[in-house]
């Protein structure tokens, strides 16, 4: 399969820079897949799983928002945070999920519930990415 160059950065630095066969990512409008030779594109990212199919296997990561741009066949992703499956702390994610669920169930403060929903989505993504690493 034809390869293309992908660069992923988060505020703390570069987390991925290399060639991949295919890339699948969650945008705010839904999941999209990108192959080599994609037309120029801009899309904001949502909370969801990021999948990279490299020559030496697949890599998964939990992504929580950011931007994707394709320009001249090269993909750059500026994400708010990226955690590759091997770096995810499953226990922490599970605790965050429970915490968020409690806040939502309490239904006290509208803003707190909204924030908890985002946290829940992040925790669920982390858990599902981490679960598949076995």
């Amino acid at each position: 399969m034809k390869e293309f160059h992908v660069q992923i950065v988060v505020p703390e630095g570069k987390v991925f820079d290399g060639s991949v066969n295919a890339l699948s990512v969650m945008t705010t409008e839904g999941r999209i897949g990108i192959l080599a030779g994609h037309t120029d594109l801009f899309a904001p990212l949502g909370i969801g799983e990021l999948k990279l199919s490299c020559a030496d296997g697949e890599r998964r990561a939990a992504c929580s928002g950011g931007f994707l741009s394709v320009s001249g066949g090269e993909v750059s992703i500026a994400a708010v945070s990226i955690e590759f499956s091997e770096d995810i702390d499953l226990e922490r994610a599970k605790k965050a999920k429970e915490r968020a669920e409690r806040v939502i169930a309490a239904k006290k403060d509208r803003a707190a519930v909204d924030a908890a929903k985002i946290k829940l989505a992040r925790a669920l993504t982390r858990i599902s990415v981490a679960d598949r690493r076995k």
Partner: protein
Amino acid sequence: MSGASMNEIKARMKSIKSTMQITKAMELVATSKLRRARQNADNAAEYCRVLDKAVAPLISSPKAREGSLWFDEGEGKDVLYIVIAGDRGLAGGYNSNVLKQSGADGENAVVLPLGKKAIEFFDRRGCEIFSRNCSEVAELGVGDCFEAARAVCRDFANGRFSRVELIYTEFVSMLSQCVKRRTLLPLTAQESAVDSDVLLEGDVAAMLDAAVPNYVGGVLYFAVCQAVAAESAARRTAMDSANKNAAEMIDTLTLSFNRARQAVITQEITEIVSGAEAL
């Protein structure tokens, strides 16, 4: 000339020496902090570069600009100044430079100060303060920056602010830091980067609403990292020159101490000799 002046000189030397110990320690601390801060600043710069490049097609797209409030400067509303200074003094002109050049003293100025020194400064001037949450600039993480950016963007979208200006110190090199000013909102299109063929996935207006707070947060985090690195560098330089001055003062004082001691000895000899002659 007597023992009294010798003691005086000795006391001064002692106090300068202890000051020098402090400045030396501060220099070492600043150097080690600087190493980490520089690493962070470099990483954030890389992020900011990719971010700018990624967002350019959206910002310069004519479709996005049309009727969008993110590109509009309202009339007669407040201007928000985000000013990043340090938490502590003793960093040469670092704090005063950025605070003086902030220009946040107009009638419609609202300030979001980052760093204890910035909060103190704008409190003293009686400026209207947007939020005091960011008091420890060295402790600010990515999350804090994004949170602050969301609050700022919300108020900009509500029409409270007509402009949002960011004033920070850029880390140029170990010896040079310069104050930078950047207009965050309204967004300005980078005409050179116009590439109208870019496919924009989804509803452009909704996309902007989602993208702008993230973009502002990213730029804010970049500025904070730069400012923290610049502060450490400024402190290191200031402490280095303080050390040099202290060493110089000790040299001068040692010289006058030796002269005083010699004078006392000479006097004693004269006294003994004249005493012996008198016998």
